[in-house]
């Protein structure tokens, strides 16, 4: 029955069954333009056809949630009438091919998602994975300067992020960008094409032949033929985007603007269909009215172009002039390209000629979902027998220095200083510690933000790994004194057509759902990036958690570095023999194996509450979570951030705790805090009340990290190791 060639179907990335379904739904064959439109919207990237059924398991509601998944970005109430709007998104495939522009346009896209909600973007974070250095140097440098290049030019500070290097990402890097914006809650916008007769106004860049089929491209594996699809990469124009954002801010209170939708993957087709679908309306688009950058573009090309820096505004009929006046003030082109209709169809015309006519729901909600086969992978290669490994590191200071110099643990300063992290005069906790914090000018409110992923742990056990990512993000937020309140996530996986990858996806989402419920953290937005494979090999399953926290009074915020000499240093939480998947095993014994640390979610919650209570009471001078590299690395980081040493009695292990696990194990639910001695009684009280174990490690001061009679490392040596790690 397929009256359409296989080649054509491949071009639009539809399967034969899907094509049959299209014909059934339409009760006719689609024409070429229609087929292209359906093809992109039914791509994994736009339709979430594989992940959608699984994503429903994630909790998305809560008392602070103003907007859950389904809009351009999620939004939460952060108090005093303010909403924080945020989302994370991947740009892995474009970045693999053109690192600078791929990463830059990734930032551009996520800024537009937030701006489309009516918010002013005020912070960007990134989460990056590459293959090992030096082979990945070009990609790494290009991506970092691309992220900085876009954010710096727009004037939104890049306040945080993370980067890891693992062979699993060598062919397929991960480039995720998160943006957070602020808006008075009453002015939150939605992407709805409401009100028959209202106008569709396209604003910003002119439309060119950029990235046609970018969405389906992102849903395909990278192979040699990617070469031919290369024009899918675009050149961003952050300058134009900055003007677009300012113009939208000027229109913030305009009642002439009914809805705003950014143009991203699948361009106009997606933007118009989504906006109409959300409003239950239809739309008519005249492609002849779309301002072009190039001559001779076909309706197909106009509808599928992914030219950057464009926005669709739904404007009250008759009031377009006042909106266009604001856009012109910013030298932005705009044009009325169509209107809202009431018949549930998306009509595309070129002048008088009908080009396409499709029911909106065929483009959006009726895309068939896919449930695939799941099968756990063979994990035998990751088996670990700790009894075969000696318990005492031969030379703890040498091991510590090697860990500090490891590209995954070393100083991120060479990256951070390429990002303007201060513009906006709001960054009250700068990047480099745990979470960053910005204040809301005119209030005492502070918003803490972090991104955390856990590909290594997820490779070993996706369920546990997912929980660890969430728990670690929550600890990073709490370490600033802010309460973790909501999440945006980006799920980076290989091809779900492989049963073991689909299994990883299922397990990860279950783990996330579980941790979110236990810690009372709704997921309000997110993104899924599948088909991260090269030559048949998948990346580690990599859920990236973007978490947001709130503190009512940012003057009570904490940072990770020690503050004063003579403060007590405590370890909060219990340590177990958690060496599975640790950086220690890798650096010291060349082993990547084992089971990741268990996350006791009840205990995790208790520790978070304890830290928040002690911070709120003003008892602490610093707080830092214990993560990769374990306790000794955490202590070294506290020293390095403050250029202060620490000195304590020799460390001893009780029960069956191994000495290497005490120093370098990655047991969850732990913090290192410092406090003035007078806080001690009160801390002990609170610890008892929250049933938290605390252990005195020593006292701040001096220029070394020392355990008397056991070992010591100088600040200078640690600094040298830490600073040189990225080469």
């Amino acid at each position, binding site marked *: 029955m397929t009256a359409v060639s296989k080649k054509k179907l491949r071009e639009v990335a539809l399967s034969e069954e899907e094509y049959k379904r299209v014909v059934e739904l339409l009760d006719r064959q689609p024409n070429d333009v229609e087929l292209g439109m359906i093809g992109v919207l039914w791509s994994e990237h736009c339709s979430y056809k594989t992940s959608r059924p699984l994503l429903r398991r994630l909790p998305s509601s809560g008392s602070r949630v103003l907007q859950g998944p389904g809009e351009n970005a999620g939004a939460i109430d952060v108090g005093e009438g303010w909403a924080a709007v945020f989302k994370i998104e991947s740009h892995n495939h474009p970045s693999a091919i053109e690192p600078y522009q791929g990463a830059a346009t990734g930032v551009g896209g996520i800024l537009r998602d937030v701006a489309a909600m009516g918010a002013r973007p005020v912070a960007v974070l990134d989460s990056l994975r590459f293959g090992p250095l030096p082979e990945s140097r070009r990609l790494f440098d290009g991506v970092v300067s691309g992220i900085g290049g876009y954010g710096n030019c727009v004037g939104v500070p890049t306040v945080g992020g993370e980067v890891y290097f693992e062979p699993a990402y060598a062919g397929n890097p991960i480039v995720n960008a998160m943006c957070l914006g602020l808006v008075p809650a009453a002015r939150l916008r939605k992407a709805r094409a409401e009100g028959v007769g209202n106008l569709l106004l396209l604003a910003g860049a002119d439309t060119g032949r950029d990235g046609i089929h970018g969405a389906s491209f992102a849903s395909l594996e990278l192979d040699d033929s990617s070469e031919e699809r290369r024009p899918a990469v675009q050149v961003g124009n952050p300058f134009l985007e900055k003007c677009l954002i300012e113009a939208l801010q000027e229109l913030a209170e305009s009642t002439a603007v009914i809805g705003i939708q950014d143009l991203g993957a699948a361009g106009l087709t997606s933007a118009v269909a989504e906006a109409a679908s959300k409003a239950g309306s239809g739309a008519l688009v005249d492609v002849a009215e779309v301002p072009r950058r190039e001559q001779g573009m076909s309706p197909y090309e106009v509808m599928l172009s992914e030219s950057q820096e464009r926005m669709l505004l739904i404007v009250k009929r008759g009031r377009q002039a006042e909106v266009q006046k604001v856009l012109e003030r910013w030298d932005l082109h705009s044009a009325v390209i169509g209107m809202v209709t009431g018949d549930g169809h998306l009509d595309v015309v070129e002048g008088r000629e009908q080009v396409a006519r499709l029911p909106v729901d065929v483009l959006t909600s009726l895309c068939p979902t896919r449930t695939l086969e799941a099968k756990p992978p063979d994990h035998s290669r990751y088996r670990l027998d700790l009894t075969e490994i000696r318990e005492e590191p031969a030379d703890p200071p040498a091991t510590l220095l090697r860990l500090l110099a490891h590209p995954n643990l070393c100083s991120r300063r060479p990256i951070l*200083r390429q990002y*303007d992290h201060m513009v906006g005069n709001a960054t009250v906790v700068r990047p480099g510690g745990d979470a960053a914090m910005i*204040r809301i000018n005119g209030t005492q409110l502070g918003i803490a933000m972090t991104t955390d992923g856990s590909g290594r742990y997820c490779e070993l056990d996706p369920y546990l790994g997912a929980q660890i990512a969430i728990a670690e993000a929550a600890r990073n937020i709490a370490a600033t004194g802010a309460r973790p309140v909501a999440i945006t996530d980006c799920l980076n996986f290989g091809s779900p057509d492989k049963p073991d990858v689909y299994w990883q996806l299922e397990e990860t989402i279950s783990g996330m759902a579980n941790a979110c419920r236990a810690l009372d953290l709704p997921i309000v937005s997110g993104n899924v990036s599948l088909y991260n494979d090269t030559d048949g090999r998948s990346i580690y399953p990599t859920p990236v958690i973007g978490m947001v926290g709130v503190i009512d009074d940012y003057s009570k915020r904490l940072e990770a570095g020690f503050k004063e000499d003579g403060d007590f240093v405590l370890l909060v939480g219990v340590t177990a023999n958690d060496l599975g998947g640790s950086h220690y095993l890798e650096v010291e014994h060349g082993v990547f194996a084992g089971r990741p640390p268990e996350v006791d979610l009840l205990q995790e919650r208790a520790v978070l509450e304890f830290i928040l209570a002690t911070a709120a009471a003003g008892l602490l001078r610093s707080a830092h979570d214990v993560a990769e590299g374990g306790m000794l690395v955490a202590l070294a980081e506290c020293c390095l951030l403050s250029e202060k040493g620490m000195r304590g009695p020799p460390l001893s292990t009780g029960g069956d705790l191994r000495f290497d696990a005490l120093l370098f194990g990655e047991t969850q639910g732990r913090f290192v805090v410092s406090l003035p001695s007078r806080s001690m009684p009160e801390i002990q009280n609170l610890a008892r009340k929250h049933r938290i174990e605390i252990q005195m490690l020593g006292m701040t001061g001096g220029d070394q990290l020392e355990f008397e009679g056991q070992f010591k490392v100088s600040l200078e040596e640690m600094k040298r190791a830490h600073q040189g790690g990225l080469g």
Partner: protein
Amino acid sequence: MKFGVVVFPGTWSDRDCGQVIEQVLGAEVRFLWHKDRDLQGCDCVILPGGFSYGDHLRCGALARFSPVMESVVTFAEHGGLVWGICNGFQVLCETGLLPGALIRNDVCEFRCEPVHLFVERADLIYTANLDRGAVLEVPISHGEGNYFADAATLSQIEQNGQVVFRYCQPDGLVVPAANPNGSLHNIAGIVNEAGNVLGMMPHPERCAEAELGGEDGLKLFNSVLDSMREVLVAS
């Protein structure tokens, strides 16, 4: 005393300057749109940081042709205070109100980090509250802040004492290691001969509050405010 802050398309330090002037300094601020010629009676015009016109072609190259700049040039020629910060400094060089040019950082990377500034001139309206030889900690945030002038111009600037700030170590030593971008003679900021037009790459508006990590920048804003009060009272 009224500050004017110019807004070009692509400017982003306008809001930060406005916030400092209004909320920290408690002075009056007017935003001056690039398409307008009216300086609204401002006593000091700030050309703030950002990427005017995307820094396309060259930093500051296109901004200099905007209508507001015609008025700014006239204002400066009549002794008005014109203060270029970061992109504003670049615009002033392109306009010719200040000598030299700012080229790409020698490291070929954007740099956002605190630097130390050795204060060479404490007799200007901008630095009246400082002492010569004082050291300030102020952040930079630029990709093209590498000050260049040909040998003749450079020696003239030095002879005239037009260098206001040089990159230095925390102890005040002006050494190559303290130079973040390759600027000739560690130059971070210069004035015109008359002393009314100042250009500097570092961002004083970013360190005007202890909560943001320092207050050294506020000293410059206060200098302007205090000096201008005297001038205005006297006149």
